[in-house]
């Protein structure tokens, strides 16, 4: 499954857990599937799912990616957060068709109990809106960086030293930590009971990644020709966010480089315990 779908998956699971009628959740991550009358919620990620003409699916169905084609009946709600939903003439949706994001096409003959639309921009971050978003992010991170630099300068130095001194080690720890944590959180979210813990975990992950990005800014800032050292880190953070924004324009390679940089920062934060201690690696004989 595409890892970028994880936040939407958590949102879908959160919505499913709020529905008192839902006891189980089925996740479709790839391939083509015909939905059946099996009870429980269905989350469609990168897969293609179809409700055939003579089939009644209990629902609810959450669409976070892929494609859903409804030709039969859905007794519950369909909530579209992303992806493609096509409702044919022969379709009946007894519950609510809630459109939040993605592409929706409803044939005129389709019978729908209730239809609501709350479109949220979920496309690729490009154009003025994307730039504004990046600018706001850069500004916020720069403000936090300035505060961190003043109050916990030594901790920031520890994380930055880990990035500069051992980039491969920090990248490895960051990649492994992110991969494992994301999978564990998704796994926890599926129990529904542990969904709040998973959300807390995601928040901690975001904070750690932001801390890593600030440390990257600290590294870059130290190399900028800035007279006042107090400005170096915030300016470095702005430069880092700008570089990440530029990298995101380049397909695949740019994304990988940006991800690598963020994971290196995250790894450095983890191995230094958020900067509490310098990274100590074993010194091996030649």
């Amino acid at each position: 499954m595409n890892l970028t779908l994880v936040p939407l998956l958590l949102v879908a699971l959160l919505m499913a857990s709020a529905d008192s009628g839902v006891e189980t959740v089925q996740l479709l991550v790839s391939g083509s599937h015909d939905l059946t009358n099996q009870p429980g919620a269905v989350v469609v990620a990168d897969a293609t799912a179809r409700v055939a003409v003579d089939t009644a699916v209990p629902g609810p169905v959450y669409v976070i990616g892929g494609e859903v084609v409804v030709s039969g009946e859905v007794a519950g709600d369909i909530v579209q957060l992303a992806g493609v939903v096509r409702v044919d003439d022969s379709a009946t949706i007894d519950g609510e068709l809630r459109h939040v994001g993605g592409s929706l096409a409803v044939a005129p003959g389709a019978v729908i109990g209730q239809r609501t639309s709350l479109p949220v921009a979920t496309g690729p971050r490009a154009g003025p809106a994307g730039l504004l978003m990046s600018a706001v992010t850069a500004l916020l991170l720069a403000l936090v960086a300035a505060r961190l630099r003043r109050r916990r300068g030594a901790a920031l130095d520890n994380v930055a030293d880990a990035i500069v001194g051992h980039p491969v080690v920090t990248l490895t720890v960051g990649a492994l930590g992110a991969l494992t944590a994301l999978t564990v959180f998704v796994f926890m979210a599926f129990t529904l009971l542990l969904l709040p813990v998973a959300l807390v975990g995601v928040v901690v992950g975001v904070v750690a990644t932001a801390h890593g990005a600030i440390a990257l800014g600290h590294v870059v800032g130290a190399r900028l020709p800035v007279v006042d050292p107090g400005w170096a880190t915030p300016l470095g953070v702005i430069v880092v966010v700008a570089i990440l924004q530029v990298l995101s324009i380049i397909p695949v390679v740019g994304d990988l480089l940006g991800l690598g940089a963020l994971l290196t920062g995250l790894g450095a934060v983890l191995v230094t315990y958020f900067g509490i201690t310098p990274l100590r690696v074993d010194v091996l004989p030649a």
Partner: protein
Amino acid sequence: MNTQSKSTSPAGLVRGLVDPAGPAARLVGPIGVTGVGYVAYVAVMAAGYYYNLTFVQLGLIDLGTRRVGLASSTVSRAMAGFAVAALVVAVVTGRTMDRRGWGGSLPVKIRLLFAVVTTQTVLTLAAPRVSTSAGFVAWIVVCSATLGVGMPVAFSLMVDLVAVRHRGHVAAVAAGLAFAVAAVYPLEWRIEAFAPVMATMMVPAAVVLGVLSLRRFAFVDRLARQHERFGIGRFCRPTPIATASLAFWVPLAAMFAIFFVDSVGFLRIIETPAYVSTSWQSPEIGPRLVIAAAHLVGAAMAGVLYTAFGRRWLLVWIFGLFAFTHLLYTTHLHTGPAGMDPPLALPLFYVLAVSFYTTLNFALWPDLSTPATVGTRTALGVGIAGWLASFLSTSLALYSESLGLTLLDHLSLVNALALLLAVTWPVVAYIRRARSLATRRSPP
């Protein structure tokens, strides 16, 4: 004939290897003799482990059950006997190596490897022709003897060929390559499919080892002297550890547990069509390439972590990864919708854990040794942790299958064991730390 054509002829090449200033020596030049040693180590270990993973572990089961027609329980007993016999031969070989000082003698190791590879080549070519239980047992006896010799000899090459600071990375390359190739080729897990692939690989290897055994070469002499600098392992500095010490047996017990958990679960997973046909034996190349890539990435990660942090952190990750992987499998068996392909995340986490511990297995035993002790330590380490655990657990998996235990019940037991280990290791580490603090504070 001009001078250049003379110098690049086969005879000239051999002269060059004998002569440090010859043309072959100049070919070695760009990567250096030490680099040649690294390449040689990776080639030997990757090929040897590939052989073990495919032909021995999977081919032997196929040979016994399908070709000879023995019951699973009989094959499981035969494999347990195979493991014990190989372990005994490995320990005897390792002890002999240490007593005679062969741990630091590369030429002796090359000669022993030549004998092992030659015998195994004959065994490999003979395997598809085995059709009786007596032939199967005879094949196992000879195979266990040669592999028993091969274990300490191959694993101890690290003290001659790889510098301590590069062992994690070099081990990662060898482990990653072995698994990556095994994931892609051959697709069919049958003795008839394995044998030609292996023979094609082993015949040239035997020829090279034969030439190196029979003639003296300058670059081999230089490689053979490297153990004076590389020989003392990372965990034997500044003071070598004793074989009869917790410093050696605790990692050995941990590695035994890891190999056991892996094999006991894996054999039943690959017996389940829904899991194996969507991953390791997928008819599409895509999933198998993803698995191969995951092996390479996982091994590289393990190499970096081992080099930077040592064995303890890596063991924590391995136990955690195995516990999580088995949890994923059992949860999928409990709740996974029928008729739907299992997600690729399941085998990918498995692959990550396997690459981690294999990298550790390659580097750990030489790092717990010196040239004087490497024979016994690698024999005990690889023999007990790697070999005995794998085959005992494989036998147990076959036995559980013959008892009619369902995959879910079987994996639930494995999952319980994996979780127990994942919890035990940090607790043991905590207790050790507490003991160390208490000892430091106690009055003289």
